[in-house]
């Protein structure tokens, strides 16, 4: 199995959509508290990894572990059996995700968007949840927006609320799926600054899919370069960005830099 320091581990994970093999026998691991950025061309499987970790997708084959637990399996005597819903819910409670399209609940005011999960899933009292939500709104710079509906906020503000909502469940693992791709460049930069601050002041394990290379360089401990469902290069941001070894990484980085 995996080394003791590994917190998240993919072991020989395969995932196909129809004939399209998105993850091909993929194995990698992430240590507790590590911040990892997944880069690579679109369709290379980065987002699929986050979606599998969030249990929005199930792998066709292979295992995923989070901490001591298998995410999709349960140990029964010595064999692995498919996990029950209760098991998945328990393991999943350590993980949360921020989405490209924010996905706030439009029928709830900002405050309730943030307090819903802490109260329902994590058994916080209303006072506790509201106090924490107000702290988080202050952190993301949206004090005073408690009673707004998401539709009354700009895209950047909605994404800040989504970040507050994710932090409110005190996750061990935070998944960021192209969180600034739907935002204007200027607004995106502000949201990235916020995430940079959060990364630097917390020990949450972060897996991040982004096209913002400067952000990747600033916050991550490690960068994984994907191509066609495989990791082609795995290194520190300095090494990957300044001295890429693999040809695919070199052409990818060149195209991204040309773009910006």
């Amino acid at each position, binding site marked *: 199995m995996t080394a003791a320091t590994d917190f998240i581990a993919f072991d020989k994970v395969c995932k196909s959509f129809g004939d399209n093999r998105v993850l091909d026998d993929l194995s990698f691991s992430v240590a507790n508290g590590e911040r990892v950025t997944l880069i690579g061309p679109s369709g290379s499987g980065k987002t699929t990894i986050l979606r599998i970790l969030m249990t929005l997708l199930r792998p066709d084959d292979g295992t995923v572990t989070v901490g001591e637990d298998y995410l999709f399996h349960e140990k029964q005597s010595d064999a692995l059996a498919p996990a029950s819903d209760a098991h998945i819910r328990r393991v999943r409670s350590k993980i949360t995700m921020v989405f490209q399209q924010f996905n706030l*609940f439009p029928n709830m005011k900002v405050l309730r968007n943030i307090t819903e*999960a802490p109260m*329902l899933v994590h058994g916080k009292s209303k006072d506790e949840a509201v106090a924490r939500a107000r702290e988080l709104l202050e952190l993301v710079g949206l004090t005073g927006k408690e009673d707004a509906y998401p539709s009354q906020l700009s895209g950047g503000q909605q994404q800040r609320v989504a970040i507050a909502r994710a932090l409110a469940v005190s996750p061990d693992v935070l998944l960021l799926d192209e969180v600034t791709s739907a935002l204007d460049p200027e607004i995106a930069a502000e949201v990235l600054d916020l995430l940079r601050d959060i990364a630097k002041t917390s020990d949450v394990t972060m897996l991040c899919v982004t096209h913002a290379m400067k952000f990747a360089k600033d916050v991550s401990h490690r960068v994984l370069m994907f191509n066609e469902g495989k990791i082609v290069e795995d290194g520190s941001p300095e090494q990957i960005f300044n001295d890429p070894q693999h040809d695919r990484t070199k052409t990818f980085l060149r195209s991204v830099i040309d773009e910006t």
Partner: protein
Amino acid sequence: MDWNWSVVGDFMPKLGEGLLTALQATVLGFLVALVLGLVFTLLRRSRFVWIRAPFAFIIEFIRSTPLLVQLFFLFYVLPEIGITLSPLTAGVIGLGLHYATYVSEVYRAGIDAVPPGQWEAATALNLPKGRTWTSVILPQAIPRSIPALTNYLIALFKDVPQLVAITVAEPFFQARELSAQTFRTFEAITMAGLAYLVTAFVLSYFGRLVERRYGKVY
């Protein structure tokens, strides 16, 4: 053909009574349809095929048989197996059951229109399944369904005259009594028709108010 106002005047109390009965059948029948329709929708989405399949069949069965036949069955056939229903109760159950199958389709469309990202966000926050339905999905699906639901409310109301067949004393039942006693069929049927027309207008106005007040998710 002459129009006799004094017959009309004498008919008013009975017509009013009939209209109240019709409204009772409408409101109760629609409530049954709203609740049962939701139950149908959710059962049809069950992940267990042994729940899903029989309900898909039951819904299709109810939708494909005429309301009148269902009413006869409830009122005249059920007593033979020892279940006797009052006319109004049979009418409410018949209308409710029949319209539940239509209402269920409306809810289904409303639920399908909720973006997948909402389910995904609920998963990311680990909200329990039941709570995802009650606090995320349905509060978005139902407001979208309101315009179609108010249409079915009016359609149901206009099906109430079929309850004559099981002796519910709605306006046309009253009109037939009147014409049998006075032979003033023209006045009787016209007044009963007008009672339905005016009430349908009021209901559709009321429907638009509800749409305006509750029809948006935000």
